[in-house]
């Protein structure tokens, strides 16, 4: 077992973990933050996207021990109970959520994109989101939601 310390959604937490434990499993099973999803386990679908020190990463491809001393933000941390994040609002308003299983990953990737590039072109949005997989929407309303979120955050 290895002792690690991670700041999760703004709070410092300490864990004893096996060296082979995935960040995904730490988040879902130990912290019960089930907004982060398992979709494939091999870094193909993006459903497990979280932020590691502000950067979007696939938590199924990161060992928990590699997050030691760092900051992890999950979908549960992006908004408080009463107020949604503008990105979440945009996804709802644009009809970008169908089954919703991929949505947390998309929201986390979108937030990372807009932090890097507040006014992305459609091509830049599509390129940035290409690691997040959606089987329902055909991505049309998702791209619109990202554009709308960019406008919300820019205004």
């Amino acid at each position, binding site marked *: 077992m290895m002792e690690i310390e991670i700041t999760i959604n703004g709070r410092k937490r300490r864990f004893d973990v096996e060296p082979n434990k995935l960040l995904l499993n730490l988040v*879902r*099973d130990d912290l*019960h933050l*089930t907004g982060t*999803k*398992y*979709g*494939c*386990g*091999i870094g*193909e*679908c993006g*459903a497990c996207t979280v932020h590691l020190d502000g950067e979007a990463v696939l938590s199924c491809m990161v060992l928990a021990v590699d997050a030691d001393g760092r900051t992890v933000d999950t979908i549960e941390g992006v908004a408080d109970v009463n107020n949604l994040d503008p990105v979440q609002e945009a996804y709802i308003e*644009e*009809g*970008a959520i*169908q*089954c*919703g*299983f*991929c949505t947390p990953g998309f929201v986390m990737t979108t937030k990372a994109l807009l932090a890097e590039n507040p006014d992305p072109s*459609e*091509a830049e*949005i*599509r*390129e940035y*989101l*290409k*690691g*997040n*997989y*959606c*089987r*329902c*929407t*055909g*991505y*049309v*309303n*998702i*791209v*619109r939601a990202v554009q709308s979120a960019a406008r919300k955050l820019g205004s």
Partner: protein
Amino acid sequence: MFASDMSLPNMLYGRVLKSAHSHARVKAMDVAGAEAMGAVTLTPDEVPDVVYCPRLVSIPEATYRDWRVLTDKPRYVGEPIGAVAAESEEEAQRALEAVEVEYEVLGASFDALDAMRPEAEAIHERIYLEDDLLDVESNVGCALDITEGDPKALEDADVVIERTYRTNRRYHNQLEPKSVLVRPEPDGGVSIWSTTQTIHNTRLLIHDIYGIPVGKIRVYKVALGGSFGSSIHVNPVVNIAVGLALKSGRPVKMSYTREEDIRDHCSYQMIFKLKLGANRDGKLAGGRLEAYLDIGAHQIQAYPLLGCVVGWWVSLYKLPYVEYTGKAVYTNKVPSCAFRGYGNPQITWVVETMMDELAGELGVDPLDFRLNNYIGEGDLFWGQGPSVKSIIRSCGVEEILTKGAEMVDWYNRPKAGAQTGRFRRGWGVGRGYHTSSAGAPVPSSIVDFGGAMLKMNEDGTFDYVSALMDHGCGTQDAHVKIVAEELCVPVEKVNIIKADTGTTIYDVCTHASRGVYSGGGAALKVAGKVKTQIREFAGRILDAYPHAVRIRYDEEGDRTVVYAEGIEGREVTYREVAETARHKNWGTVSALESYRQPSCPPHFTGYFIEVEVDTWTGKVKPLRVVAGADIGTVINPLLAAGQVHGGMAQGWSMSLLEDTPYDPETGDLVNGGSIANYKVPTSNDLLDLDDFTVFFADTYEPTGPFGAKGLGEGALNPVAGTVANAIQDALGVRFFELPITPIKVLEALREKEG
């Protein structure tokens, strides 16, 4: 909260032991090693000796049964032959690896036509239909033949084309892998949270297998992370987890990995031999269809599907003569199940491809040829098979095709076929439809009814309870809108109540694009009953006639008011009605109703697609799409358009990318179960926003709630045919096998151009 997100105190994690062979007999299974590690194990001889069908949508006379919870004769790589449960997923996996299995390996077939040869090994020797034990001949699980009309019509046709087609075997790749949590209850029952499109049929199947009284089985609605038909049947993992929970006496959670999920379900691969004839007057003369359905190792809904394949075929265009012979064939592959469109995308690809070929032979425009032959308003419709017939009452085909043609300037499109450069462009047109539900004026072999409960709360708001599952199509949203519209309240005043089998009445399943049409029909029925009661109570309060009072929403006061028009002071709010009913002991304003739709109106769709083919790489790119849909009244425009966007994306990859071929040497999937080798489009592979237009026809379905029909499946059905026609237009080459991969494009070009 999705099933895969659920957990309970003291729960065990289950893992399934899967066959390593595509066809074998398990001669011995030693679980001592796993038990020594503290795991609970489950073997084939420990589960009830019940042969079942996991899909309970059809009546027993149409339901062939060949499944067991765990089998000692696995028929595909990955078939469950045992299971373990332990304190963690990792411990369960280690215990699983400690189970020793001795197999006797049997011969296997990986192609439907191969499996029918006399020398092929029998995959099933006997299967059940009701109480009868049937012998299986030539690995044909079931068959259906239908002939209608005068064969001379086809024999005398001016032009006849006959072709053989083969579709792909697609994996749903729904984002949430199949998952379940089961809790054994002190009364001998079980509570279940699972990936399902039907909580009530899940309960019935667990009752059939384990003999637990129906009322002691509680199946809870949870969010479903996509499904596309893959949970119309009860997923095998559910039945296994119940066995583990009953044996261990503890809650058991089982979630498939993606690699397990891709070996759990897939679409039906179909081989068609189609002959269509037409006359110089531009009318179809008749057709003959031979269909071989590769159903994999077990039947889920093969027999009803045989009916639907002919139904989808004959309900597209008017055919004076129809001859159909369909066979559902076992192979040693993952069992096939419904996948958005239920055979309709497959047969529509074939028909729409051949319609273009016939139009070419006749020298007419393919769009005009379609307009001259389609089945529309006033015509008999039996898309859902020969036992489900009704008359079409709304049809937007002409509007879709003519408006779409105007938008893309169809008749002035560039003349294709003569291009010689690296990049070649082509336009395709295709149309289709899907049923909305399986309703009909008389009972059929398919169960199709639902139900809902609605009550008025003491503050004048409403609670809506329904068993109908929503898997991302906005179904429950639509129900709320329907209820709110009928009761003159904003949607915020209607709550959707979390429910389960114990608190809802029966609904068959969310499938067949029936969520809005059938489920919404039930919502409207209970809303209507509640409205009548509100009128009665308000009438008493106001000393007015119930049928004469009017209802309006007062936006300023955010309240709904019942009033006697023109009579001053005679008005009362919903809240006051509910309060008065309570204080005067009149009871709760409420309604609980089952509802059966009188028909299954087709929702129609049409696509115009422009593609560009790179003749150096064989890659095909979408350039422009115009899609029209007739779904009656559009209840949720944003999500309705989203259904078309998603249908286009799935249809695009059905045309070009998706397949799950097998390696006959290993008996396993060529991709080894990895979705890294199962190609589907990303956000970067599809159309720019400006190049994709969706529009809705102006129609009203008289039998639908506020005129609405379904959409989910029709949005997909014509895409593959349209894409194939566009590629033909670009290259002058027609493809008869899906998917149309770059390699196939390059090979065809080499053959044509050297």
